[in-house]
């Protein structure tokens, strides 16, 4: 989907690791846009390339082992492919904020949280120590930390996981970035705190008008927060659609597998949860095959020999699957999909 002027636009991003000869293709021509003020969810299981995509965009992959090719990585008017290390540093933290998966270890243990929030603003906006501390106080209040003045002087180990994740969010938002990347922001937290954090991210997106890329493997989180979803498998985006379209009309074998493996409604309480057989391929799929063929319940003979092209199902819904009518038809009866129709 192409909007008038997306915050982030990525075309044909490929990343491979390792020495020549034994290269591991981590990303295979990934393309997506994030519109202004939109939450895009990148969904897929561990190792499918969600995090690598974001690391490549931020230029955080080690240059020695990672080879990055792309038609376009555009942040606003800035071409991130050609950005100098210095320019990239000003992008990180200032124009793109990042929240990491594990709030327990993502804060430096030896500095107070107030210092760490202030550090970002002092580095990027040249604020004085005093001004930065004052802003840090506002930010702690913004991320709804109770009694922020006291928390300013707290060390990370004195805060709970949910509080630390709020501090991480405060750091990510310190310079009012146009794009927030949240890399599985709630996996390390328990369920009630998860909901609060997701609500906070959604609220802040509205208040600050920023775009969000939400990396997750939790379809429940996707359903409640995201505007659009890109499903990734083995380094490729296999299906991309607005949330409602995706859940109403899932069209890729892998999306179907993900939806089927969700806990169902009351009728299915006694049954074992459905699973996707097998594992994520250790090495990239052959270039001319669908990467999911071997595990796919809907595989056709052609899937192993021809790579299905990206096809536009509706204006905003694209999918790379030969058997998508069968997929959509088979899932029409699952409670999860019925809930969306």
């Amino acid at each position, binding site marked *: 989907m192409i909007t008038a002027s997306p915050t982030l636009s990525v075309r044909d991003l490929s990343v491979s690791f390792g020495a020549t000869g034994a290269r591991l293709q981590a990303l295979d021509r990934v393309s997506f846009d994030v519109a202004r003020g939109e939450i895009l969810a990148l969904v897929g299981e561990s190792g499918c390339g969600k995090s690598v995509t974001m690391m490549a965009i*931020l230029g*955080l992959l080690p240059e020695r082992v990672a080879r990055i090719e792309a038609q376009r990585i555009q942040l606003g008017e800035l071409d991130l492919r050609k950005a100098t290390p210095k320019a990239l*540093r*000003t*992008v*990180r*933290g*200032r124009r793109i*904020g*990042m929240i*990491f998966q*594990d709030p327990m*270890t*993502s*804060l*430096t*243990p*030896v*500095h*107070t949280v107030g210092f760490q929030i202030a*550090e*970002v603003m002092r*580095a*990027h906006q040249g604020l004085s120590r005093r001004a930065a501390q004052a802003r840090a*106080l*506002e*930010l702690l*209040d*913004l991320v709804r930390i109770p*009694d*922020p*003045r*006291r*928390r300013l*002087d*707290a*060390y990370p*180990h*004195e805060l709970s996981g949910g509080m630390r994740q709020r501090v*991480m969010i405060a*750091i*990510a*938002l310190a310079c*009012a970035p146009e794009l927030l990347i949240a890399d599985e922001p709630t996996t390390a937290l328990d369920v009630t705190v998860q909901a609060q954090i997701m609500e906070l991210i959604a609220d802040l997106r509205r*208040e*600050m008008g920023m775009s969000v890329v939400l990396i997750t493997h939790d379809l429940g989180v996707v359903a409640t927060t995201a505007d659009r979803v890109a499903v990734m498998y083995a380094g490729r985006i296999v299906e991309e659609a607005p949330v409602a379209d995706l859940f109403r009309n899932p069209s890729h074998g892998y999306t179907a597998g993900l939806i089927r493996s969700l806990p169902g409604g009351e009728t299915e309480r006694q049954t074992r949860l459905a699973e996707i057989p097998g594992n994520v391929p250790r090495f990239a799929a052959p270039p001319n095959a669908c990467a999911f063929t071997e595990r796919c319940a809907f595989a056709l003979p052609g899937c192993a020999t021809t790579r299905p092209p990206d096809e536009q199902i509706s204006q905003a819904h694209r999918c790379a699957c030969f058997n998508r009518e069968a997929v959509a038809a088979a899932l029409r009866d699952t409670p999860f999909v019925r809930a969306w129709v």
Partner: protein
Amino acid sequence: MIAEPAAPPPANCPRRRHATMEALASALREPWTLLCLLLLAGFLFVAFFAGMVAGDPLAINPAQRLKPPSAQFPWGTDHLGRDVFARAMHGTRMSLAVGASVALLSAIPGVAIGIFAAMSRLGGALVMRIIDAMMAIPAVLLAVALAALLQPGLTTIIIAITIPEIPRMVRLVRAVVLSVRQQPYVDAAIASGTRGPTLVFRHILPNTLAPVIVQGTYAAASAIIAAALLSFLGVGTPPDLPNWGGMMADARRYFQQDPMLMAYPGMLLSVLVLITNILGDRLSDALDPRKSTRKI
């Protein structure tokens, strides 16, 4: 832009005291730590004011050789009739000077080289091979050789003990930095645009310091022993510098007549080394914010 906070936090909420000060204050409340600190203060006092607490450590009095303790000589006299108490008190100076200097002088280059070795691939490999080569030489042998090469004196002893101590510090710092560098908070700092030097000084160095401080106190303790050993062997110490190792070396020959001649400096040495080690452990606990007992 970011919205204004709905309600400003109450202004009368007191800021807490600085964490490090608070941690040190709580360490002081432990009786063992307090005892060690008092003992160390005693050693320091004696080292600075040895001339006032005790008499002349160098005055030779052949008529008063190997006398038992008396009002004039509280710990008796040695084989030249010198005041053992005065010599032991003056000997504190050298032990403390060597311990403190070696700890500091091995920590500064050790931390710098260690961080360099961990952050630079090629340079690091080169530095570590040199360090490996240095560690292959026995420390005492290297110290004896260095002490023999240079002019006798306190500086020589400090240099001779510091140089074999540096490789240990480098290895420790490098290992710690390598693990700190992999921590998510370092990635997080890079992802929020932190520059190289800031990254090292603000995120990597402070997280490296606790083990460095402990290693520094161990280095001080082992340097005090090494200095005594060098003096015992008669390397590097000028005869007019009273020190515990030299006293023990002299006392060795008169051990059967007066074993206490060896016991006085030996006990002082043991106590000083012990309290240095204990205080090192306590200090590393106090400096680690995760181990402090404060609650908010």
